[in-house]
């Protein structure tokens, strides 16, 4: 791919119920990313799923316990810088990285 740089994609899988210092873990992670000047982060909510605890995560009438995926794409160094912090913040869940070729588009509008 011409004009594409090598980078890393970091995917964090956990659930909506996971908390970090009294706020949803996904919010805490996104804030941490902004603090560490990571280029971007996107949080997705799944419809249904199961993981390490083998319990099915689905939406109930009152309690929300849906699967959450946070995707972060940045350079190798930046992801390396972020990883230890994220590992420390997550009590359980899954962290996966993969190699990507990326291109950031930023046109002056």
């Amino acid at each position, binding site marked *: *791919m011409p004009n594409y740089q090598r980078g890393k994609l970091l995917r964090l899988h956990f659930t909506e119920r996971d908390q970090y210092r009294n706020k949803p873990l996904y919010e805490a992670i996104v804030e941490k990313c902004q603090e560490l000047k990571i280029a*971007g*982060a996107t949080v997705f909510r799944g419809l249904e799923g199961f993981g390490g605890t083998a319990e099915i995560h689905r939406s109930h009438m009152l309690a929300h316990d849906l699967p959450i995926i946070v995707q972060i794409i940045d350079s190798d160094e930046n992801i390396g810088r972020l990883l230890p912090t994220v590992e420390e913040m997550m009590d359980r869940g899954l962290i996966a990285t993969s190699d990507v070729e*990326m291109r950031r*588009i930023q046109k002056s509008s």
Partner: protein
Amino acid sequence: MLKKGSAKKVTIYVNEDTQHHLSALYQDILAFLLHKGVSGATVTRALAGFGAHQVIHTPNIEALSEHLPLRLEFIESAEKVEELLPTLYDMVTDGLIEVQDTTIVKVATREKQQAEPKHPHERKAGKAKLMRIFTGEADRWNDEPLYEAIVKRLRMMDIAGATVYRGILGYGAKGHTHKQNLLHTKRDLPVMISVVDSEEKLSQAAEAIEGMMQDGLIAFSDVDIVRLVHANPLKDAENAKLPAR
């Protein structure tokens, strides 16, 4: 059946009353094209016009309305046109033949397609690329949501498939946090489109999409396709009877 891509468009101008072996020339040409298996041809009658004889043919004056111009058009592959042209050259004794390069964008037919050995969307298991496009829900392109425009474009480019995901929180190129506000008055949540196809097709697609995006991120990664068969609704009934492959 015509295929997408470059082709030739042939336009023949004749007069309504030009004769060829006791019948009207345009009818003879049509019959010839049909006989040769041309995928389609259209004859249109002009409102008025003039030609080599420098006489205006118009329906307003009865005496001049007998020679109204006709335009006969058909589109075929370059080889087919090459094959037909000598005969047409011979047949058109009074008129004009013109050939243009053209591009076929879409060939759609409502009839059931002939059983093809392989459906164009079918891909074998193997190496492929996954493209992720990150944009915002509020991004627009020519007055329609950008993600919709991108999916439409991918469809036109015959890309195997695309899925749009809406995130619940995020930030990125724009520097602001995409978050649902309480009153749901303004939606600007993050959007990701994931697309899987061969590297070659995706790099073409990426080029087109880069031109549509103001800001955002495109990322490629390697994937292995396990199986992909694009179901053809017309074929579903038949497939249901076949044992699973």
